[in-house]
């Protein structure tokens, strides 16, 4: 009788007439009069349940507590989260819970019994999001504009439903904002001395410790890790080196060399708000190689190095980003393909496939080095490279400088926590669409991101502030 699309006014009028079917009141159970079914919550005498997220505005790496109250007791509910990426794609997740005897549930303490994740996962709604059915394929969630938040609509639905198939009626909602920048953090586009990057400076007088931040061969200039570092009190300079319109030469090759990366480090050293002797370098994927390489350039003395899922050297030629034909790129001999035709880059960075002269002289490292491994990394041979680093440093008597974090089930893209992962996404779309496999499975990858981020920040705290 009281299904989804009846208006509230109509419901009010109908139920006022028919008080014999007065609703099930939590805490006032009248034996034998329990009413089950969809009319549970719709009434003139009860408001919608109260759904809250505390706090409603957070940084992306902070937790928020989602709770609901004033629901029927021991009742099935579905919580659903939806948000749009900067490109307009819809991402969503949902989970099934049961309220307790007081008509409440709390994601910090209760277990999801189905949906996008299961078990007790306070932030599960955020990290388990996937593109909604009907959205474009091959997506990866990356925040382009770090000065605006993600706006996440969190809804409460009746029963255990799948939002895509039979959503039913939304009975309550709350909006949460997830920010990549703290108030007071300053963002500066840097285009000087040939450098292409963005500098984030925390609020306050400084001087601050700093990070030089590099990503992989996907190119462009992802700013979101740097903006988060600045929101944690570290100046951070994310540096573009390939596939950016302001860089010289063709966009599908790396056209900058040692002097470029050294200049980037020196830029930080010479900045009036940065402590010259407290600068670290961090890089993911090919950025990891650049981190190790830059960190051992003559005259560059970083205070710490962080490498995530990347090689210790470069392959025989600097990688071409675009696919032209399979024959023209010598590295493509190392590519493999899964049964869906997705590229697996992993073999390219096996130590034995790296150009021997490009392999970083790890024994010359003089600062602490943290290396993060996703054990299901299908894009880079992270385990093998970590083994090589460990072996080299041990032989040089420098094991005390090395920290290795290894995460089973985690893939290549170990990013700031509570963000959705993509096991595969588009690598290129022209001249043909090609997907690449990053690896990782949602739950262990999410746990890895959360743990790795915390440990990275602690490592930076120890190396750059004490």
């Amino acid at each position: 009788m009281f299904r989804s699309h009846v208006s509230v006014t109509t419901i009010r009028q109908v139920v006022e007439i028919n008080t014999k079917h007065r609703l099930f009141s939590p805490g006032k159970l009248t034996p034998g009069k329990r009413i089950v079914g969809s009319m549970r919550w719709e009434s003139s005498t009860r408001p919608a349940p109260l759904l809250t997220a505390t706090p409603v505005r957070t940084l992306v790496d902070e937790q928020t507590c989602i709770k609901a109250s004033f629901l029927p007791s021991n009742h099935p509910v579905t919580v659903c989260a939806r948000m749009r990426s900067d490109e307009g794609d819809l991402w969503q997740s949902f989970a099934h819970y049961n309220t307790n005897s007081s008509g409440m549930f709390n994601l910090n303490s209760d277990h999801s019994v189905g949906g996008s994740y299961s078990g007790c996962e306070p932030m599960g709604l955020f990290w388990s999001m996937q593109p909604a059915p009907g959205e474009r394929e091959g997506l990866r969630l990356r925040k382009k504009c770090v000065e605006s938040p993600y706006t996440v609509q969190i809804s409460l639905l009746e029963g255990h439903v799948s939002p895509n198939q039979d959503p039913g009626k939304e009975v309550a909602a709350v909006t949460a904002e997830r920010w990549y920048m703290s108030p007071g953090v300053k963002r500066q586009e840097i285009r000087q001395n040939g450098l292409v990057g963005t500098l984030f400076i925390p609020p306050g007088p400084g001087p601050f410790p700093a990070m030089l931040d590099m990503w992989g061969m996907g190119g462009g200039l992802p700013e979101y890790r740097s903006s988060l570092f600045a929101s944690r009190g570290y100046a951070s300079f994310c540096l573009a080196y390939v596939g950016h319109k302001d860089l010289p030469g063709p966009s599908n090759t790396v056209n900058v060399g040692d002097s470029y990366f050294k200049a980037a480090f020196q830029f930080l050293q010479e900045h009036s708000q940065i402590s010259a002797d407290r600068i670290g370098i961090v890089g993911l994927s090919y950025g990891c190689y650049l981190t190790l390489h830059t960190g051992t350039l003559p005259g560059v003395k970083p205070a710490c190095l962080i490498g995530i899922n990347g090689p210790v050297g470069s392959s025989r030629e600097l990688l071409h980003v675009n696919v032209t034909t399979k024959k023209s790129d010598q590295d493509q001999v190392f590519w493999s393909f899964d049964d869906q035709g997705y590229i697996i880059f992993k073999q390219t960075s096996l130590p034995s496939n790296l150009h021997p002269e490009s392999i970083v002289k790890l024994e010359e490292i003089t600062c602490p080095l943290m290396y993060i491994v996703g054990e299901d990394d299908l894009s880079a041979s992270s385990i093998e490279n970590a083994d090589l680093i460990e072996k080299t440093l041990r032989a040089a008597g420098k094991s005390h400088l090395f920290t290795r974090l290894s995460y089973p089930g985690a893939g290549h893209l170990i990013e700031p926590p509570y963000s959705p992962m993509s096991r595969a996404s588009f690598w290129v779309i022209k001249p043909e669409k090609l997907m690449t496999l990053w690896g990782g499975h949602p739950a262990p990858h999410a746990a890895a991101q959360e743990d790795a981020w915390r440990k990275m920040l602690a490592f930076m705290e120890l190396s750059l502030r004490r």
Partner: protein
Amino acid sequence: MCPFVQQVRMDNSLQRVKLSVHPSRALVDEEFVILVQNVPPGSPMTLHALHCSEDGHRWEACGHYIADSSGSINAADDCSVGGSYLGVEPMGLLWSLKPVPGSKPGLRMRKKDVQTPMVVAISVFNGHHSEAFVDQVSLASWVVERWYMAPGVRRIPVTEQQLTGTLFLPPGPGPFPGLLDLWGGGGQLVEYRSALLASHGIASLALDYLTNEFTTQTGKMVDNQYFETAYRVLQQHPQVLGSRIAMLGLSLGSVFTLKMAVYSPVVKLRCAVCISGSHIQPVSGGPQEMMDLFTRNIEKINFSEQNEVIWRSLLLPVPSDPSMKADVGRLRCPLLLVVGEDDQNWCTQESAADMEQMMARAGNDHLLTILSYPETGHLIEPPYTPHTPSSMYRGAGVDQKMMVLWGGKTPEHSAAQEDSWRKILTFLKKNLYGGSDPQAIHRSHL
């Protein structure tokens, strides 16, 4: 643009100082944690807050701390031993904000634009300082935003049927319980409390009943039907649950809250909250008659030593004439009274005592809760905002501004704001979201 402290290099021992405030974006009534790390153990440090208000004034506060043996200061655990607040006060930097020296006298901080946050710069300085912060270099600084509106809350101007108000709706489909929100004799359309209430799940209509459009244009005050119209507009809103509406009034607003709760055939409240108010009023009159009552008693004004106006005796003594006070013995819904025992503007304490007696005699005092706070003044507002002991005030329709004494001592008043707000929210949620219908006894059963 408000200038912050200058940036100069400092010596190495203090370069590692780290300051963090979490969460950096929060609702005005939420707590944050201020943490300072990597200072030399045992060193004296000052935490400082600076805020530039919408009207361009600068407000500041400070706390004096001693770093522990690990070189940390946590404002939630550690004691302030000097400055504008003392003791373990995690939010002291906000509630003890005062205008900087040299400011115009009689300032009061009130957020007009609720869609933007209040921005506060929090800094840590070496040593213990209480003044001249502009001339110092801070060791570290952080910026926090304090919001009156949660994301997704909708702000809807209400102008139908000659009303002047703003409705704040929580996010979601509803239906939500509703609340009619009345401020005091200064008039204007004050939105920030309603915005906060909507951020807690209550559809709240802030109503201007003194300087509203009708009064501004005609020069005439509205009558009691104005409040009933506002109630109806709220009740009939498709996203408001018409059977669950409350009223909340501060100061003069409490007079009309009680009038409606007791006498109106239209207004049926789930519960009522009266802050710093009274039941003393001409029962059969409206706003104009209330203003006339004040005018008739004008000689009862007193003045403090600093020549601040004290209005608390204006309505005293509590009349015994039943036509001069709302008959709260007839109330059918729960009533929460919030009383500042140092209220210099209204006779709140005496009124609350009289209301208690009336309800005890009538046998409905089980509906009454009184929260009475020592050393607390008249302006009991949402927490963690500055206490105003006195300010330059212009009553609605009055040409002249005068310095009015509100009362209260800052630490006690701030504690009262924090405690009363929490209890008001619990009271409202309990009665609006849960509980049985107090009016039900009068409904016929089918």
